[in-house]
């Protein structure tokens, strides 16, 4: 039995792996680890089938067919590692000479621990700003993560399953298969439902979570913001179910806003003012002695008319009457009213609970959102609208409410006091996250780069983590205008299948990937991406054959920790068996490359910086590793761990125990009550940040780069382009969801999961409403085409169900493979992304995230 962290999804459950005669024969959850509670999922259990898949890459392979493209046979030729390394080194050297920024790095969302060392640190050492995670602009979090960061200092939120009594889900599965910390959440959610927590799910599809919920609210895709804003409107304007105490102390609700939409600030300190009710005058928000301040009303400061931002929100919300929202989202106004009232009443505003001797606000309601509700044109404001209910009733990071995921506060490992970090306020009193996976904090907004340096122009904005700009038709023109002196040169891709995960594959390939001189991909299979675009494919180890630093700890980039009270855990990944054939852990290649390229010191420095930022602490790797010493990942890990946990807890200790755990503290889990930080119910700073970005765009002659009018302070619902589709032929809204059986596109090649999926009516099908099917003459099991107005099509087998809106059609998972290197996955399921358009019109103007709404027409295969 060897303990390690599962790597079939980013849940990273601790598992015990059984080895017999040098072969992995079984995997079980580790019952003592808080990371999974001993449970495991179908994907984790199927890992041996991935480990021993005869289609796995075993040798470096070079492309012999110079032609690149979808469906093209790359003509792989086996080469030696030596040749491969020489080839790669020379390409990278050329790139350095031309401009190191021409290197584009792409890393997997599934392996954040590996990604940090393989990609992020190497990128830093190499000196390129260009990077994205797996899905690029289509990944999970341009909107969702950033809003999570602004409101919860965390990249997502989850209900406090232990105490929550009513959770409202908007397009997320938390605890029902996919989502974060999948197994942990599954158990917590099951416990909560057994205890009596009610779940209301807004989803166009009767998803797993919707089918096990108290109530399924079939909402139209991309309209969540309208529904949520109408509910907030009711809470604020009709029912008066607001937590005024919270709004006054924990939000910028009382901050006075002037005619220009910006805060009215104290002349001397520059701090935002509030209206102090006691002495009936303005006062800097943080001044001592403010017993009570105004949330509503009209005031005058220095002759300027102003009002508390809450007043502005209140006024703004009035247009979101339930009737108006109902017309948009297709949910009856009476339902919106009822749910808003239930939410507000169930919040038990004013009540408290004592945990561990500490009296805390008790707000047993949570409004939770994720991938589904954020995949739209308006995603930044969608997410803001969905998080808002929590902050109106004060249900944020308090018992029963919406909790930050992988909590943002950790007061230190008891043995050493290391790994210490917390949230803090900025000068305006607003919440600043202190361990954030992305290159820039969600707040305060970074200054825009002038001119931008990145090919996706991300660095001239303030919300986006990645954009799809590098794949727009207009990319060359934009790079030209923004005076970006370099072009795509070399790409290093780690564990991603960009052809299937980043929007429309043809657009990405033709507009972007084909521009690279050289693409190297580290993968375990030759997928559609390698076949279409890669010049060199290097056989990585799978998670059972390699080390990874800290797979769970909430600072490595993904926070896949249990939420709520319990235990912290730092777990590692370690090789259970020697890598088979010529597979090599990517990190070894990266260390080797760093040395070959003379970037050794830069790499170690980047690691130091990363480790310090991510794990909190300081460690001088350059000193600890002698200049002549060959770089070894094990040594680096050993140093890091000893630094965090003490001399006796080095890599050897972790190899034996697999993980280290220690109890969570109330102050860490329910940190909001203990930290003087506020969140913006009025995003004043977006006005300022938006102006700055706009100024850059205008300066370089691209004034309409995005719709700047969306860079406002108050949330709104904005329609997706599909909502305006006039042609009645395109009568179905298509969307996708994640099957619990699969992780993105990478698990369809697993024959156990594949066989189970074939036997599940949803995973590999197009789900169509029974009546719609009847109307269109489509029967169960028929093959149909879905076609978007631009003629892009996807084909699949229909499953008729009553569990979907009649005007919608759903596709599960990221299936429909065609790659030669994936014989099991090939031809199974439906490929959704073919239907997506990657362009300005389908990018959120604030977060630049990809809109995945698609209007389609449906017709039987064979007929038109």
């Amino acid at each position, binding site marked *: 039995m060897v303990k390690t962290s599962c790597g079939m999804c980013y849940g990273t459950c601790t598992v015990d792996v059984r080895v*017999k*005669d*040098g*072969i992995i*024969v*079984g*995997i*079980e*959850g580790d*019952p003592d680890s808080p990371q999974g*509670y*001993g*449970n*495991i*999922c*179908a*994907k984790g*259990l*199927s890992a*041996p*089938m991935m*480990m*021993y*898949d*005869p*289609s796995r890459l075993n040798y470096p392979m070079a492309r012999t067919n110079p032609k690149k493209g979808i469906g093209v046979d790359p003509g792989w030729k086996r080469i030696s590692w030596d040749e491969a390394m020489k080839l790669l080194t020379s390409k990278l050297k050329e790139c350095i000479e031309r401009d190191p920024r021409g290197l584009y790095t792409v890393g997997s969302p599934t392996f954040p621990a590996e990604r940090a060392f393989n990609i992020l640190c190497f990128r830093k050492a190499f000196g390129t700003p260009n990077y994205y995670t797996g899905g690029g602009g289509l990944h999970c979090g341009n909107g969702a993560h950033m809003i999570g960061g602004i409101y919860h200092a965390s990249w997502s939120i989850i209900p406090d399953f232990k105490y929550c009594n009513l959770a409202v889900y908007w397009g997320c599965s938390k*605890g*029902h*298969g996919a989502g974060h910390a*999948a*197994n942990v959440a*599954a*158990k917590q*959610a*099951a*416990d909560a*439902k*057994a205890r009596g927590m009610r779940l209301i799910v807004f989803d166009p599809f*009767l998803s*797993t979570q919707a*089918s*096990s919920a108290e109530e*399924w609210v*079939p909402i139209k895709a991309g309209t969540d913001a309208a529904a949520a804003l109408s509910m907030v409107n009711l809470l604020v304007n009709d029912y008066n179910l607001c937590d005024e105490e919270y709004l006054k102390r924990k939000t910028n609700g009382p901050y006075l806003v002037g005619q220009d939409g910006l805060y009215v600030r104290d002349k001397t300190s520059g701090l935002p003012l509030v209206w102090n009710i006691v002495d009936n005058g303005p006062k800097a928000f943080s001044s001592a002695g403010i017993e009570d301040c105004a949330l509503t009303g009209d005031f005058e400061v220095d002759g300027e008319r102003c009002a508390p931002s809450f007043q502005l929100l209140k006024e703004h919300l009035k247009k979101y009457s339930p009737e108006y929202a109902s017309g948009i989202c297709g949910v009856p106004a009476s339902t919106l009213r009822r749910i808003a009232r239930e939410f507000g009443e169930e919040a038990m505003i004013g009540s408290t609970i004592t945990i561990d001797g500490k009296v805390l606000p008790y707000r047993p309601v949570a409004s939770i959102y994720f991938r589904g509700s954020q995949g739209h044109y308006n995603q930044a404001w969608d997410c803001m609208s969905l998080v808002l209910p929590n902050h109106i009733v004060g249900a944020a990071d308090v018992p029963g409410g919406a909790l930050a995921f992988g909590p943002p506060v950790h007061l230190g490992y008891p043995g050493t006091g290391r790994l210490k970090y917390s949230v803090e306020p900025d000068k305006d009193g607003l919440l600043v996250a202190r361990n954030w996976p992305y290159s820039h904090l969600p707040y305060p907004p970074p200054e825009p780069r002038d001119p931008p340096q990145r090919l996706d122009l991300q660095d001239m904005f303030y919300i986006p983590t990645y954009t799809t700009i590098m794949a727009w038709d207009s990319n060359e023109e934009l790079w030209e205008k923004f005076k970006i002196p370099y072009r795509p040169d070399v790409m290093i891709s780690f564990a991603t299948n960009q052809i299937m995960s980043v929007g429309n594959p043809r657009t990405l390939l033709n507009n972007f990937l084909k521009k690279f001189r050289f693409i190297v991909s580290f993968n375990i299979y030759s997928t559609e991406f390698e076949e279409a675009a890669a010049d060199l494919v290097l056989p990585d180890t799978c998670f059972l054959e390699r080390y990874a630093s800290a797979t769970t700890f909430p600072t490595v980039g993904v926070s896949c920790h249990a939420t709520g009270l319990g235990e912290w855990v730092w777990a590692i990944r370690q090789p259970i068996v020697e890598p088979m054939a010529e597979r090599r852990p990517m990190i070894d290649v990266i260390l080797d490359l760093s040395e070959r390229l003379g970037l050794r010191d830069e790499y170690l420095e980047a690691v130091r910086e990363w480790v310090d930022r991510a794990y909190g602490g300081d460690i001088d790797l350059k000193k600890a590793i002698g200049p002549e010493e060959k770089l070894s990942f094990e040594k680096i890990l050993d140093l890091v761990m000893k630094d965090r946990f003490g001399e006796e807890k080095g890599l050897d200790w972790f190899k034996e125990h697999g993980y280290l755990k220690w109890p969570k503290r109330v102050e860490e889990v329910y940190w909001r009550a203990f930290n003087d930080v506020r969140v913006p119910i009025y995003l004043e700073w977006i006005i300022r940040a938006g102006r700055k970005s706009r100024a850059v765009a205008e300066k370089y002659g691209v004034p309409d780069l995005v719709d700047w009018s969306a860079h406002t302070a108050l949330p709104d619902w904005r329609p997706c382009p599909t909502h305006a589709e006039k042609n009645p032929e395109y009568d179905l809204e298509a969307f996708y969801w994640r099957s*619990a*059986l699969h992780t993105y596109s990478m698990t369809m090649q697993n*024959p*156990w999961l594949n*066989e*189970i999926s074939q*036997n*599940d*009516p949803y995973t590999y099908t197009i789900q169509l409403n*029974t*009546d719609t099917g009847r109307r269109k003459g489509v029967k169960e099991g028929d093959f149909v085409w879905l076609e978007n107005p631009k003629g892009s099509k996807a084909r699949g087998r229909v499953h008729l*169900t*009553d*569990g*979907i809106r009649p005007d919608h059609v759903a596709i599960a998972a990221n299936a429909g493979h065609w790659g030669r290197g994936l*014989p099991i996955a090939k031809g199974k399921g439906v490929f959704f992304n073919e239907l997506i358009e990657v362009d300005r019109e389908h990018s959120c103007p604030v977060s630049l995230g990809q809109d995945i709404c698609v209007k389609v027409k449906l017709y039987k295969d064979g007929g038109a």
Partner: protein
Amino acid sequence: MVRLGMVIDLKRCASCHTCTAACKAEHHTPPGVFWAKVIRVESGKYPTVIRQGLPLLCMNCAEPECEKVCPTGATEKRPDGIVTVDSSKCVGCRYCSVACPYGARCFAEDWKDYFTGDRRPSSAFAAHSRKMWLEESDRGVVSKCNFCADRIAEGQNPACVDACPCEARVFGDLEDPESEVSQLIKKRRGRQLHPEYDTDASVYYLPAR
């Protein structure tokens, strides 16, 4: 007397198929053989529609139809309630399969490799799987869930029970009124599937709603 049984809480179950995979991983069942599975049942008309995942396995019935019809004596009921198939006695007539009301029985002509469909294993793991399977069962016979008899003998829970992420499955002694299974059945109105067939199934389901 002990009577082993299982309780599946449909309120907790998230239809995730972990049990399906856990059983496969534990017993190395070949393609097409599912001792555990989850079926998806839907009823009602949009928008008042409900869907339920229903995890199935051998009910290890107290009055097993399969045992009654088995002409060879390969299927037997143990004193602890587990219904077993002695694969060295089974002839593969599959009378039990048609007689079992729960679709619990699986026929496999031969071990086959999951990747190639061949009788030859494609990897060391596949060779191990093949060995494990042929130890557990034979070619051309019928097999089924045996409540993980080997694990139970070692004091462990069945594999599907241990794996279930939602902890929806509980295993124990139905005869002992104090056991968790008995208590759950009593408190949560646990019910058997198809009681009308008088199989007296040893798997009980707790209602989702």
